[in-house]
């Protein structure tokens, strides 16, 4: 098995899976019907991308692996998503800030991944770019609306940005697997996206009248499977059916 490639695909797919799961929680509970529909759309796109990644990963893994065994039957320590995407939906500002901070990265990543030497990854990236551009526009608009809306919304969005900022740096950590894949022209060296990322985010936060956090302290761990305490509860729900009724078709 191509272990590096397999692990690298999980890195890509787990972010989509967990971000999609968090947005999915909100379905039916959003602040308006219109935002509800839009958030569900983003969630749907992300799960669609997850399926593409995991179908490919299952092919590579063989041994009867499926998109579902990969999505639902790993232990927490085996999920490689960044800590950012697993953070809970405290309020709508939090949800929009989290998703925006991921979306900017996601689009930059896909814009490079489309030139991957791996034709499957390249194809997934090409298909996903349009979706990710819509996501970042939608969530960026909300960061601006809430940042430059009322005093209350400004404060809530600023709090969300302050709290979540600590998880942004991990997006640019290069794992061993990712390094190998980048060297082979299959993966993206995410370290190279960092400067553009912070430029873009800074510009939008300033337009949103928000203060860009200056903290030099960041959290990481997700890419090596050390998650925050929120992750276990997310997985307990997400995996429940597959765990309680093993080896069945749905």
């Amino acid at each position: 098995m191509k272990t590096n490639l397999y692990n690298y695909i999980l890195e890509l797919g787990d972010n989509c899976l967990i971000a999609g799961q968090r947005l999915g929680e909100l379905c039916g509970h959003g602040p308006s019907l219109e935002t509800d529909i839009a958030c569900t759309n983003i969630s749907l796109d992300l799960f669609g991308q997850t399926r593409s990644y995991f179908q490919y990963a299952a092919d590579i893994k063989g041994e009867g692996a499926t998109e579902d065994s990969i999505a639902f039957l790993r232990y927490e320590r085996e999920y490689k998503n960044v800590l950012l995407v697993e953070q809970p939906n405290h309020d709508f500002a939090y949800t929009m800030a989290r998703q925006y901070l991921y979306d900017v990265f996601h689009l930059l990543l896909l814009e490079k991944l489309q030139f991957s030497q791996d034709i499957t990854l390249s194809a997934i990236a090409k298909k996903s770019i349009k979706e990710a551009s819509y996501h970042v526009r939608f969530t960026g608009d909300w960061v601006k609306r809430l940042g430059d809306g009322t005093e209350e919304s400004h404060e809530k969005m600023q709090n969300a940005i302050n709290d979540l900022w600590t998880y942004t740096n991990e997006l640019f950590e290069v794992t061993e697997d990712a390094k190998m894949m980048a060297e082979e022209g299959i993966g993206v060296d995410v370290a190279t996206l960092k400067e553009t990322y912070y430029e873009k985010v800074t510009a939008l936060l300033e337009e949103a009248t928000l203060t860009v956090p200056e903290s030099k302290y960041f959290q990481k761990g997700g890419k090596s499977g050390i998650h925050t305490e929120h992750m276990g509860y997310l997985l307990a729900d997400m995996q429940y059916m597959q765990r309680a009724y093993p080896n069945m078709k749905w």
Partner: protein
Amino acid sequence: LSLEEIFEQRIANDEKIEPKDWMPEKYRKTHIRQISQHAHSEIIGMLPEGNWITRAPSLRRKVALLAKVQDEAGHGLYLYSACETLGISREELYEQLHSGKAKYSSIFNYPTITWADMGAIGWLVDGAAIINQVPLCNTSYGPYARAMIRVCKEESFHQRQGFEIMLTLCNGTEAQKQMAQDALNRWWWPSLMMLGPTDAESIHTEQSMKWKLKRKTNDDLRQQFIDQTVPQADILGLTIPDPDLKWNEETGHYDFGEIDWDEFWQVVKGHGPCNKERMNARVGAWERGTWVRDAAMAYAEKQQNKKENQAKAG
């Protein structure tokens, strides 16, 4: 001819009534009541299914379920829009829902406690909804009729999807089959009730018939639903939880047992298993969303002012 007589004639001729046309006040009120009730049902209907999004057993099913709940939100949107053409605002409509003044379909006050409920809701609840709604594609009020055409198309898709969930379970393990049977047991009677009280107790029928807001009586629709659903249960290999159910050669329909109307009225009056939960979820989402909607409005105003100032300056 009076305005009213012209109006009645147009309806009799199968012409559509449009928002700017003259209409009797009672027509307007009845339509607001029915369309909004229908819209509210779509929105409340998102909750029991939304309950399984985080726990759907496969990625494929999770995507399909999300898409379905999203469709329901979409239906809510068209229907609120149709309703707004009758001169009522979305805020007023929400206010009626949240205060309990407006009703929504009672079926959504039952809990979804297993994955099979996602199948049963699609198969039975959407099945019953379609039977209710197909005739409305030809109803007299234009915006409602057009919304219903779109809604019905998507509902049929949902119903097939629900049936397919049931079929997969019934072709699965013993535990899955039991899960499917259990869901049928719990959703069967509420689905029959969904088609409304018996004709004897139904208060709106006659007038609604004339306006094509109703083209068959509740009891006829219920019979149609049963006749259509029993053979589907046979395909699934499931038993309908009604010992009195049997084919009647003479009438060409299924006979069926007594419906527990006490339960029906208890739920309608707000005392079903989840009435309180559903209202709390909706009102809670709305209240938690106030600052968000306020912010969006404030931002839009600021942007508008900027534009105007730039225009003046320019």
